[in-house]
């Protein structure tokens, strides 16, 4: 697969990540420029935070355990899961099959799946 140059990818990310939590776009930039191993996880967290519906009882995102169930505990619905993976596709080019998507149940699963997908590219 031909990967566009970092500046074109960043330009694309700027458009797609408008209105996302602070730090999300910077994480994308760090990822494109290969700055720091945590960039992709921070990007995923920013995207996820954007998609989570407001729930007063939910702890701050940084305190959420990796075992938290994305649907049951965090309130993500199935369409938001599809939307999240669509966003990861258009911003960082990571594509998930239906089977792979079904295997993503917890926050930890999501991070693992994204890292594995990157490593396999």
């Amino acid at each position, binding site marked *: 697969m031909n990967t566009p140059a970092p500046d074109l990818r960043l330009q694309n990310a700027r458009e797609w990540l*408008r*209105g996302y939590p602070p730090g999300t776009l910077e994480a994308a930039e760090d990822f494109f420029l290969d700055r720091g191993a945590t960039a992709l996880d921070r990007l995923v967290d920013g995207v996820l935070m954007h998609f989570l*519906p407001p729930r007063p009882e939910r702890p701050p995102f940084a305190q959420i355990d990796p075992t938290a169930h994305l649907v049951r505990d965090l309130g993500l619905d199935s*369409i938001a899961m*599809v*939307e999240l993976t*669509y966003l990861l*596709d258009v911003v960082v080019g990571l*594509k998930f099959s239906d089977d792979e998507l079904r295997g993503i149940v917890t926050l930890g699963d999501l991070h693992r799946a994204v890292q594995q997908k990157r490593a396999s590219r």
Partner: protein
Amino acid sequence: MPPRVVVTGLGFITPIGNDRAAVAASLSELRHGLSPVAWFPDCSIKVAGTIRDFSLTDLNQAGWTWPAAYSLPRETLRGLSPHGVYAFCAVEQALRESGLTSAQLGDGNTGLFCASAGSPRYLCHHMAELPASRGARINPWGVVRTIAGTLNFNLSAHYGIRGAVAGFSSACAASGQALGYARDEIALGRHRRMIVVGAEEPTWESLLPFVGLRALSRQADPILASRPFDAQRDGFVGSGGAVAVVLESEECARARGAPLLAEFAGWGQSADGYSVAQSEPNGLGIETAMRQALRSSGAEAAEIDYVNAHATSTPVGDRAEARALLRVFGPDGPPVSSTKALTGHPLSMSAVLEAALCTVAIQESFIPGQAHLGEVEPEFTQLRLPRQTVAQELHTVLSNSSGFGGSNVALVLRAIR
């Protein structure tokens, strides 16, 4: 005796105002809501009915703004196109006026009927991803944001409505049928209340296709562009926005102390069976719809105090309707006006807009004048077309709508006695 059906709430996001008070003032003072548009250099559309206080043209929802009074959660916004945002705001107004709670909306006795052409602008945007990605990628919201049922999908989910939910796609008659069938749901005892919504987007993607049919006015001056029944009229002016109406059984509305704004007394419908896009020249279809509406409401033609005509300012359509009006009501018929001179023609939402305007006119006791009327076409001189608003108590009014394929709808509203 079937339940009487009453109007208990109205909501407006329209070119002539974004709430009932603003709309009533524009309507009685004959202030139009048409503005110059410059979508492209030398664009063939020079004027349209546009919506103020909303900015929804950005292809990314992050760039959208709407009045702060409306709290629109992201879980709802994500499935909406711009006219869905207008519709949400109009429904919020109507529910507030009607005094309905979310528990009542989810009681299984409340339904929702909508009319919309979908969102051509966002349909084009989302569909463009398909060839670009060879079919591998499309925004998951691409379908529900854009197709004609988008209003009913989104609003029913947001409000937790569990009664009948459906969309109507009969073009410019669509929200008239939505109203009529919603009335029947209550009159047949199937539902206690129905919410009816019409919404459209006044964008070049929605309106320029009508240039291909030569249906739009080429005028740049709003006053010359939308002039129903005028001898020099040359086409309609497109517009959009959203209107919501709450219909309820009178018994249910009285029991909860809801405002009784008007009775929705009856309706009729027909088809021309003539042309896919052009009115049957003698208005035989709209005549049938009007006669059915009178019969359905138990009203004599002589009881009608005002007719809100469909007349969009096209040469053929206005003439067909005028001929039908003269046959149904005779030369001494009621005052007639087309409020599209002020609002433009908002396509599928026009019937619900005009039913809501008639309700306002009944409530505030006036007949909206026929704005922008210069020289009346000679054949119409027997129509009573008041050039100014007339202060008058209204008991019974009739409102017409017609759409592609010759679908015709006539609605009869009465003052609450």
